[in-house]
Each structure stands twice: as C-alpha cells, then as structure tokens.
C-alpha cells in the first residue's frame, strides 16, 4: 500500500453516490430477465419449469459486484475499487448470515406465540395431560440453575482472566491459557456425566438435583468467561495502568478501578454470551438435574425441571394430542430467548453504569 497509485486522486472522477444503486438495480434486472428466458426455454422443451428466484437474486448480486468493481476500477482507480469490492463483500456477508438467523427467529416466534400466555408462565405441568399447563416449574428451574452456575463461573472465570493478563507469568499462566482452550471443547453431555458421577460419589447413587446441573453448566461456562474477558482485559491500553501506578495506586486497586471499568462493556458481553451458551443446554441438565413435571424451588434436593429439557421432551415425547406438546415446546424456546434478551439488556445497563463516562 505504500506504493504511489498510478491515478491522480485529485483529478480522477469519482462515482456518484447513486451510481452503485443503479448498478445493483441493473444487475438484478439483467439477471431476472436471463432467468425468465431460461425458464421459458426449459418449459418449452418439456415440463413447466419454476422461476428460480434464489438463483436470480444470487446471480444479480454477483453481477453487481463485478460491474461495480470494473466501473470503479476504470473511473476511480485500483484502491477505491478494492474498497468498494470489500464494502460489497462485507455487506453481503452480513445479509447472507442474517437470512438463516431471521428464518430461525421467525420460526420460533410464529410457532411459539400460540402458547406464550400467562398460564404458560404461571402453571406447571403437574397432572396436566394434553392441552393446557405451563412451564413455570421449568422457568424457575432454569433461573435457579443458571443463576447458580453464573455465581460459580463468573468469579472464577473473571479472576482467572485477571491472573492471566495482570499477574500470570511463565509456565502456569501458559498452562492455564492452553487448558482453558481445551476446556471449551468438552462436549456438553460429558460435562453432565461428570457432574452426575461426582454427585453419585458424594451423595450416593442416582443423586440428581438442580445444583448438580449448575456444576455441569459451570464446567461449560467457565472457559467462555475466561476466554472472552481475557481478550477484553488485554485490550485495555497500558498507558491507563501506568498512569494509575504513577499516581501511587496499588496494583489491585488499579485493576479494580481502572482496568475493569474500562473493559466492563466487553466483559459483560462475554458473560452474557457465556450464560447464553449454557442456558440452552439440554443433555447435561437431563443427566444431572433430572426431569419432573412438579415445581421444585430447592436446588439441593430432588429432580429439577429446566426449560431446554422441557422443550426437548415436549418435542420428543408428544402424546396423542401432538400439537399441544409442540406448541409448548416452541413457547418454551421463545421464553428462553426472551430471558436472554432481558439478561442482555441488564448486562448493557450494568456496563453503562460502570463504564468510564467518555469511553467508547
């Protein structure tokens, strides 16, 4: 990039803002016409062909990218052309990624709203067959188990990341960094089996309770917390730390009052991400926390129902009135997403409250 561009930037013409839109439109029109002709050609030679809208849009956009690049290359020069190409690609990546995500959310909201009502949030499945009932027991279970897992994971994870960034030197820090990565690869069901065996060893065979589920989730959650908050802590500029030390602030206070607040937004994102990662886990909770249709407020005794298990089982074990079970499954999924949405808002509020006032 250090080489001087051949085209004089000052004299070269620039594409107007509108021209890219015209090119997009033109590309789409050409592609749609081409596909229409293709369709007509195919339908005359035999069975009626369908108009391939996905293909038409795809080709149209492709055409747009190429034409825009070539035009810009001719008018504006190599570097701006590259810039336009990348802009197109980045936007395209975004749109492509959004398609399945929108399809997914749409599916959940449409199917979930059928049973997402007051009864769903306040009633349990005790003695309910077929229609009616609700997921209050699962909602309570999920909140308790996830809260317990968060209370275990966040302090451990955050302290560890502070150790890695601020204190850790040498072999131990390297080992921790490495093994945290390994920990992210523990399959969720193995974490569940681990917790199940641990509790069977401590409290007798077949002990399943909400807390065992929380332990299983912690095993999955800790590495995500460490990994994401470590990354955020590393991004805090050294100048801030040094300025604090220069003022005579002890290191631990500098970390608490300067480093953490500076990176709090990122850390909160990481923690929300970690909660989101585990709140939807099914397999470990079924193994470690059990399955019940009854309300249980005590995380330290008896089976506890959780939302993902509720959703999974409603889907898997549909009774003869299958639609009622499916409706509850989707409503449960919708509830889970809403919980995380709420958590996200809370996390952002916390982040805003603690963050330095004129930080980004």
């Amino acid at each position: 990039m250090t080489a001087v561009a051949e085209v004089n930037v000052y004299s070269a013409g620039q594409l107007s803002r509108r021209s890219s839109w015209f090119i997009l439109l033109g590309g789409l029109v050409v592609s749609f016409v081409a596909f229409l002709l293709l369709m007509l050609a195919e339908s005359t030679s035999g069975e009626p062909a369908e108009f391939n809208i996905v293909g038409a849009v795809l080709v149209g956009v492709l055409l747009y990218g190429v034409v825009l690049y070539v035009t810009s290359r001719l008018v504006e020069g190599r570097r701006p052309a590259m810039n336009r190409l990348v802009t197109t690609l980045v936007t395209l990546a975004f749109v492509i990624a959004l398609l399945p995500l929108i399809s997914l959310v749409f599916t959940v909201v449409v199917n979930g709203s059928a049973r997402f009502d007051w009864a769903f949030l306040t009633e349990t499945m005790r003695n309910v067959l077929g229609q009616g009932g609700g997921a209050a027991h699962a909602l309570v279970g999920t909140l308790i188990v996830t809260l317990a897992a968060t209370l275990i994971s966040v302090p451990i994870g955050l302290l560890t990341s502070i150790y890695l960034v601020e204190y850790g030197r040498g072999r131990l820090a390297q080992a921790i960094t490495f093994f945290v990565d390994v920990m992210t690869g523990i399959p969720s069901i193995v974490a569940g089996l681990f917790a199940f065996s641990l509790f069977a060893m401590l409290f007798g065979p077949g002990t399943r309770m909400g807390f065992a589920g929380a332990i299983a989730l912690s095993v999955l959650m800790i590495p995500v917390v460490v990994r994401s908050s470590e990354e955020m802590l590393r991004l805090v500029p050294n100048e801030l730390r040094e300025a604090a030390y220069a003022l005579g602030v002890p290191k631990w206070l500098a970390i608490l009052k300067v480093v953490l607040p500076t990176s709090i937004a990122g850390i909160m994102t990481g923690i929300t991400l970690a909660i989101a990662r585990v709140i939807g886990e099914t397999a470990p909770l079924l193994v470690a926390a059990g399955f019940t249709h009854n309300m249980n407020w005590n995380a330290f005794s008896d089976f506890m129902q959780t939302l993902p298990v509720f959703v999974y089982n409603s889907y898997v074990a549909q009774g003869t009135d299958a639609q009622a079970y499916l409706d509850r499954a989707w409503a449960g999924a919708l509830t889970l997403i809403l919980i995380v949405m709420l958590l996200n808002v809370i996390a952002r509020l916390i982040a805003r409250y603690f963050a330095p006032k004129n930080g980004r």
Partner: protein
Amino acid sequence: MTTTAGPAVKAPTKPISKQRVGDRVFSGSTLAAGSLILAVLAAVAAFLLIQGMPGIVADPETTSILRGQSFWEYVWPLVFGTLWAATIALVMAIPLAIGIALFISHYAPRALATVLGYIIDLLAAVPSVVFGLWGANVLAPASRTAYAWLEQHLGWIPLFAGPASGTGRSILTAGIVLAVMVLPIITAICREVFLQTPVLHEEAALALGATRWEMIRMSVLPFARAGIVSGAMLGLGRALGETMAVAMVLSASGVVTFNLISSNNPSTIAANIALSFPEAYGINVNVLIATGLILFAITLVVNSLARYIVNRRKEFSGAN
C-alpha cells in the same frame, strides 16, 4: 512505575515497592481461581480416563455396541465426522463472522449497529434443540433441491458425488446449522475487539489517505488478529462438542466419506454419545465415555496446533 522501573532500581519512595495486603490477597485469589480451573479440568480428565479406560480395552465380542469391531475401528468414523463437520462449519462461519463484525463496527450507521449487535448476541441464546428442529424441519427440506442440482451439475467433484439425500439431512446441512450456531459467538468477540481498535490508529490511517478498506486492513485487522483467533477457537469448541443439533439434523451411518450431500454420513462423537447413551448399559457406557475422552484429546491437539500457528498474541496485546 513498578512495572517500568523493575526491581533493580530502588526508588527512594518506599511505599510503592512494598507489598500491600490488598495486593497479596487479590493476586492470591486470582492465582487460586486459575489453579481451580486446572483442578476442575484435571478432575474431568480423570473422570474420563477412569470411566473410559474399560471401554477402550473392552472385548469387541461381548460389548454389544462395538459389534465385533475394535474400539479404534468404532471410533475412527466418529473422529473423522467430528473434524469434518467442524471444518465445514468454520470454513463458512469465520469469514462471515468477520464480515458481520466489520459491518457492525465499521460500516453500519451507529444506531443501526447497536441494534444489529444486539440481535446477533441474542442468537447465541437459541437453544441447540431449536437449532436442531429448525435444521431438520426447515433447512433440510429446503436444501433438498439444491443438493439434487449439485449432484446433477457438479457431480464430478467428489464432494458432490451423491447420490443426493432424499431428505436433505446431509453433513452439509449439519455443517450449515453448526455454522449458524457458532456465528454469534465468533461475531460477538470479533465485534468487541474491532471496536477496541485505538481511534488514533484509525484516524492516522485515514489521514494518510487510506480508503476505508485499507484503514481496516492496516489498523483494525492486525490489532484484532489475536481476538479473531480467540473467537474462532471458541466457535471451534462449540462446533466440535455440539450434541443435540447435530444429532437431530444429521443422517449418520458410520461411513467415512467426504461426500457432502448424500444421506450416508459419518456421525460426530458428541452426537453419537447423545444418540447411543440413553440405551447404553454396563460396558457400553464406558465405550461412549471413552469416545468422549477421544474428543477431549482432539480438542487438545487442535488447540495446540492453532496455538503453534498463531503464536503472536503478545505483539498486539495492550497489556504488558
């Protein structure tokens, strides 16, 4: 001061060089937390080893799940499937995630970007069961025609050799579902890191006449490289270990093939555990846990490799 001067220079002001109680407690607790993680991991590893060993040495004749194969013959297609599915997912997800993150951090208008970031974060919360349902009932039927087309027109590439699946439940579908699942994770990390790029760097690049892309290439991406790798590793972890979604979408039959679109696919370790565990009893349980041990080992190897390849994180770290 302490960090830059080092212990060799004795500053006249004593309080700075003195170890405070607060410091000692704080650094001690961070050390304890780090060690606790190692302990937990050691416990998980010990659990896997103790429970898995009988499975590895199990007699193929008497262990019903092995069907007369040795343990290694049993686990090999699963290992292949796990790596293959994760590769497909990451190949799709990483460029997309970087694109999305860049779009949110540097292209979209600020107000829109906040909303978009929020939506993407939410998607990390969709339970894997729902991804499974969506993959099996929305994506798979939709991709059936595409697979038939691929087989017809690109069948000479071994990847699309077919015969195309009659239900769309192929490993490519599973890979797409996995990619969608890991997207929010990688995107969220990348976005945060991109946003942390020092504004001075960006403005300096722009002031020198760089286009937006050149600014991103010269100041944002180098700064964020370590973060991108971290995000990708987290995504890889999820892709390797994902259980329910793969189990619900993939039509698995224990073959080893690179074919992307047929209905005979290798299963993945985690999905196989989920599918076989409910009916497993006695020594079969140990065999399944042993496959979990193998997955653990795979993660270890993959992580070492990644770390070996990208061993430059300190260069870009804001901290010491």
